[in-house]
């Protein structure tokens, strides 16, 4: 049993499939949510799985360098900046029209 488990550890393809599935779940949330904060959460999920992809490639394809980890670090920093600005916009929007339903934000529709 233990031998079986030890010899069937997760390989590159397993990690990549995992992060792909998480990304697809993020896409589902992005497209099906109506509340802007729900969309932001889905975007965070997608950013996270993409960052994990970078780390996985770093670990399996170039274990000597840390470039993928640094890329993930930058992704995390940019995600933080993006979340701050997006949430500030949501607060301002809510103050302006008492709702953050993206279906009702159509004033720039042609």
């Amino acid at each position, binding site marked *: 049993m*233990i031998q079986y*488990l*030890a*010899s*069937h550890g*997760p390989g*590159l393809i397993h990690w990549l*499939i*995992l992060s*792909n*599935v*998480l*990304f*697809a*779940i993020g*896409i*589902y*949330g*992005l*497209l*099906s*949510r109506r509340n802007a*904060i*729900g969309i932001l*959460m*889905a975007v*965070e*999920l997608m950013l*996270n799985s993409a960052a*994990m992809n970078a*780390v996985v490639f770093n*670990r*399996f*394809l*170039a*274990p*000597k360098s*840390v470039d993928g*980890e*640094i890329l*993930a*670090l930058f992704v*995390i*920093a940019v*995600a*933080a900046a*993006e*979340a*701050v*600005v997006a*949430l*500030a*916009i*949501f*607060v*301002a929007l*809510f*103050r302006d029209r008492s*709702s*953050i339903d993206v279906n009702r934000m159509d004033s720039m529709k042609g």
Partner: protein
Amino acid sequence: MIEQAMATVLFYGFAAAAMVLALAVTISCNLLRAAVCLMGVLSIQAAFYILLAADFLAGVQVLVYVGGIVVVIAFVVTLTRSSQLLMDHPSPLRMLLAIAVAAGFAGVSIAALWMSAFHQPGMAHSTMDSTRAIGMALLDTGGSGYVLPFEVISVLLLAAMIGGIVIARKTPPPDQPFTSGGDRPGEADAALPKSQRPLRDRRAPQ
């Protein structure tokens, strides 16, 4: 041997938990509950980083995501009363389209991954300290260093911080000077000297 077996068990356990929690994030009608599930997903992601021998990244993940972003998201969910005002039920057509797009993406990309051959060097059992290597690379001014992006990202964070404050701040009506008074209409006026208060609020002279 036993360590590798444990890593396998942990990987599949965490993977299942991450998928379930991610689905809960996208499906849950109550956004506050979704935020808590998002916190769970991000913590599990930190565990994945540890399994991938990226210890420093796991720490950053917990500090920035779990401790920072999710808390801010929870604050904004309550500030905008999203969990009460907008119960998020997608219409069936929209749900179907979203499922189709997500499944299509997953199918195509997993098929592409399955068919591509990666050139994997032998897994160096790296017990090397990756934190030290990251620190050296971030401050390395040489050709393979990251000192310029590192500085640029600090400027970006500063800009985002200022932008967030400016956007979320209460802006006064055009005829009224800005004060740092309060959030309600009366408070902002009260912080001004008497001669500068807007006309409609000034008391009639005795």
